């Protein structure tokens, strides 16, 4: 999408649920998908007199994330109350970090169209999630709502970027990169569909060359990478049309409607938000010394950029392959495990990016849930190398492995799929085909080398695709060229 006269200015606010065992201020479980209100206690239900105690792991994860995003880790940070009334917020305040967040001023590098680009990170802070509301239909028409507090008090990190993103595409690249970093760190599941990764965007446009910022709109309710890109594209066009009509963009919150593929104003309240933040007297400050930071720094795992570099240098994989294989920790682990037992990295990469990805997408699965183990894939690749099955048969075998979890050898045997690589078995078939197609043989000998393909096809047909095509080729050529 091109706006010749305007430039977009986009910043993202990303919320991720941390993958702790227990909630941020109490010992209730954070497991997803439990029966409503079965993981709740007086603390996360906001009962009077209940006192919060901070989960150490939350701080540890926040420091980890901050370091991976090149942030400064605050020597001291504190917790504040953000006050507002909403039925999913039982205490009528959310514990968050206002003016002293745990991490500040970092950056994340993305592969933008024009090359590497650093996107500034303004801050990363810790806060608690609210409960979940279930409406009867849409919120605006529902006569009542139901409140489930299982999610209340689940730890969150809010990661706020600088307004350094210039296109909806860049916003997506940033979010994808951020997701891989968090997955590699193991601090969050980052599942947009389960709500463990949520993204809001601030977006404004300005005439090219202008350095002042235009009036921004905040866009909410984008539940996938696709909807993030669509919503931002829609919003850019909308704001441009507003300006072209000589009107002004209104500062407001807009919600993305997936069904209508448009953003709509969330009827701005008569009075501006006023959260009256103040330090939470129930929580004491957190002091992180250099020793703690150093300890976390030393425990950092390999991150996507380093892994990408490694795949390109060590295995000479193209940048594209390296990028895809390092999107998630699980994909990289799968690749690494395969490569431990199989030499040809490009072949492994092709299968992961090709058939594996296709089937995962089709069944809406993550690679960790795949029934194909790295060792099974390697075994299948060996069957190809040994000439037992052709590359084409392998696709069928792989699909069967994927859906049944069976070993490739078993499938090959069950389906009688073995490739015919026995010369003495193929020889008579070749002779038959040659005798049945004298004109084609003449064509070939007359210089039409393409005629060979037809003859190979005939032999393959005669063996219902089981002949080793390379071998058929060789035998045919031998017969044709001896004349």
């Amino acid at each position, binding site marked *: 999408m091109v706006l010749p006269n305007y430039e977009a200015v986009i910043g993202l606010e990303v919320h991720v649920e941390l993958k702790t065992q227990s909630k941020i201020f109490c*010992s209730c479980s954070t497991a997803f998908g439990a029966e409503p209100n079965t993981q709740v206690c007086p603390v996360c239900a906001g009962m009077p007199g209940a006192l919060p105690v901070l989960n150490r792991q939350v701080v540890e994860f926040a420091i980890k994330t901050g370091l991976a995003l090149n942030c400064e880790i605050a020597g001291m940070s504190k917790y504040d109350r953000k006050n507002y009334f909403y039925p999913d917020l039982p205490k009528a305040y959310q514990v968050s970090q206002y003016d002293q967040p745990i991490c500040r001023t970092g950056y994340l590098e993305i592969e933008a169209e024009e090359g590497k680009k650093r996107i500034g990170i303004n801050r990363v802070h810790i806060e608690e999630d609210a409960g979940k509301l279930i409406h009867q239909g849409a919120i605006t028409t529902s006569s009542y709502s139901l409140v489930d507090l299982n999610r209340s008090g689940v730890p969150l990190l809010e990661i706020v970027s600088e307004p350094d993103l210039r296109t909806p595409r860049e916003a997506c690249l940033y979010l994808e990169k951020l997701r891989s970093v968090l997955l590699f760190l193991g601090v969050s599941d980052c599942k947009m569909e389960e709500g463990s990764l949520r993204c809001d965007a601030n977006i404004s446009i300005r005439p090219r060359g202008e350095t002042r910022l235009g009036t921004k709109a905040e866009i909410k309710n984008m539940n996938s990478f696709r909807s993030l890109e669509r919503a931002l594209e829609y919003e850019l066009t909308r704001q441009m049309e507003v300006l072209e009509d000589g009107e002004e963009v209104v500062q407001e919150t807009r919600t993305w409607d997936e069904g209508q593929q448009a953003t709509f104003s969330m009827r701005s309240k008569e009075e501006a938000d006023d959260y009256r933040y103040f330090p939470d007297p129930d929580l004491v400050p957190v002091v992180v010394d250099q020793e703690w930071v150093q300890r976390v720094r030393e425990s950092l795992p390999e991150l996507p950029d380093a892994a990408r570099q490694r795949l390109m240098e060590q295995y000479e994989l193209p940048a594209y392959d390296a990028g895809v294989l390092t999107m998630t920790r699980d994909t990289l682990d799968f690749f690494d495990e395969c490569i431990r037992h199989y030499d040809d990295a490009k072949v492994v990469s092709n299968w992961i990016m090709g058939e594996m990805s296709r089937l995962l997408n089709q069944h809406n699965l993550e690679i960790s849930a795949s029934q194909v183990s790295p060792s099974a894939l390697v075994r299948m690749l060996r069957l190809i190398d040994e000439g037992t099955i052709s590359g084409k048969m392998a696709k069928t075998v792989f699909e069967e492995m994927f859906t049944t979890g069976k070993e490739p050898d078993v499938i090959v045997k069950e389906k009688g799929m073995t490739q015919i690589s026995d010369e003495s078995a193929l020889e008579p078939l070749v002779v038959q085909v040659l005798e049945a197609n004298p004109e084609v043989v003449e064509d070939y000998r007359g210089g039409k080398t393409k005629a060979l393909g037809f003859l190979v096809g005939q032999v393959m047909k005669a063996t219902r695709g089981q002949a080793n095509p390379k071998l058929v080729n060789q035998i045919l050529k031998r017969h044709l060229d001896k004349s």
Partner: protein
Amino acid sequence: MVLTKQKIEHVAMLARLKLDDEETELFSEQLNSILAYVEKLDDLNTEGIEPLVHVLPINNVFRDDVARPGMPREELLANATMVEEGQFKVPRIV
């Protein structure tokens, strides 16, 4: 600092309180006198003093990340005015 009538109404709105004119007047007087009292702090010289974050001189109070069962759902919902399917039922929100 003097609290105007509008400010009182704003604070009342934030606290979801409905005040009549008489109450607005009364609270305006009371809140203004409280603020005036607190303003005495302005007389202190706070030059070079770090802002206080917490009244207790302690930090880093943590618990280990271990999950334990919460409270029985019946107990949690016992005081709810309306319950449906194991959840708090609340009136229309917007």
